[in-house]
């Protein structure tokens, strides 16, 4: 295996998709202590100018992380993940994260990531860095 795990610049990542329903919102909110009403209270979300309750940014971030981890083959290989929220991600829509390998330097692989809703809206965009060196061997 090459230091980059056989990946090449331009390779597409396996997509990660999630249809986030109200039950998942409740579970994720309870687990992370996130009680912000824009995530589950429709009237409140609309009063804030949102079309409907929206998926937590942290939950969207887990999709970015998962896409990078699938490329790496293990969660411990992801050294960083970053994203910017671009548009509300309504609860109930299908969110799909896709990505591309953009840079390879030794054991370090950079990928760009985008998240779209099923209506085509760009909800978030970002990047991640993974390494093919086991964590125990890193300095």
């Amino acid at each position, binding site marked *: 295996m090459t230091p980059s795990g056989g990946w090449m610049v331009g390779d597409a990542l396996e997509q990660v998709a999630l249809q986030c329903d109200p039950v998942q919102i409740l579970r994720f909110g309870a*687990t*992370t*202590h*996130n*009680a*912000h*009403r*824009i995530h589950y*209270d429709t009237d*409140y979300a609309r009063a*804030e*100018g949102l079309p409907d309750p929206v998926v*937590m*940014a*942290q*939950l969207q*971030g*887990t999709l970015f*992380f998962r896409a990078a981890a699938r490329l790496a083959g293990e969660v*411990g290989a*992801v*050294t*960083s*993940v*970053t*994203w*910017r*929220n671009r548009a509300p991600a309504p609860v109930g829509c299908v969110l799909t994260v896709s990505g591309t390998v953009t840079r390879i330097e030794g054991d370090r692989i950079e990928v760009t990531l985008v998240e779209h809703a099923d209506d085509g809206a760009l909800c*978030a965009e*970002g990047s991640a860095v993974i390494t093919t060196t086991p*964590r125990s061997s890193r300095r």
Partner: protein
Amino acid sequence: MYLPSMLRGPDGADSEEYRPDGMFADEVPGTAGLDVRLLAGGQTIEFCSTPPLGEPIEVTRTVNGVDWKDSDGGEFLLITVSKTYRVTGSVTLAIVTERFIVR
């Protein structure tokens, strides 16, 4: 991702620590008691070490910046906060830079 996604530790918080919108009053620095709308703007997470089981973890928060923005959607403040997660008195586990949109 679990650790940096948590807004509070396992004990949660008392009712008086919440804003009327359900957010923690101190989650977005400087907004406690203000009638403002809060939205997530994005995050950068650097994973430094694997969290050990059974060890207390401390979080240090620092306000990195407060910027006035003007976009098609109107004016807003962009507050940037960094959080450093450490095993108490020991190794760094993760460094998070989080951006909040305040209208």
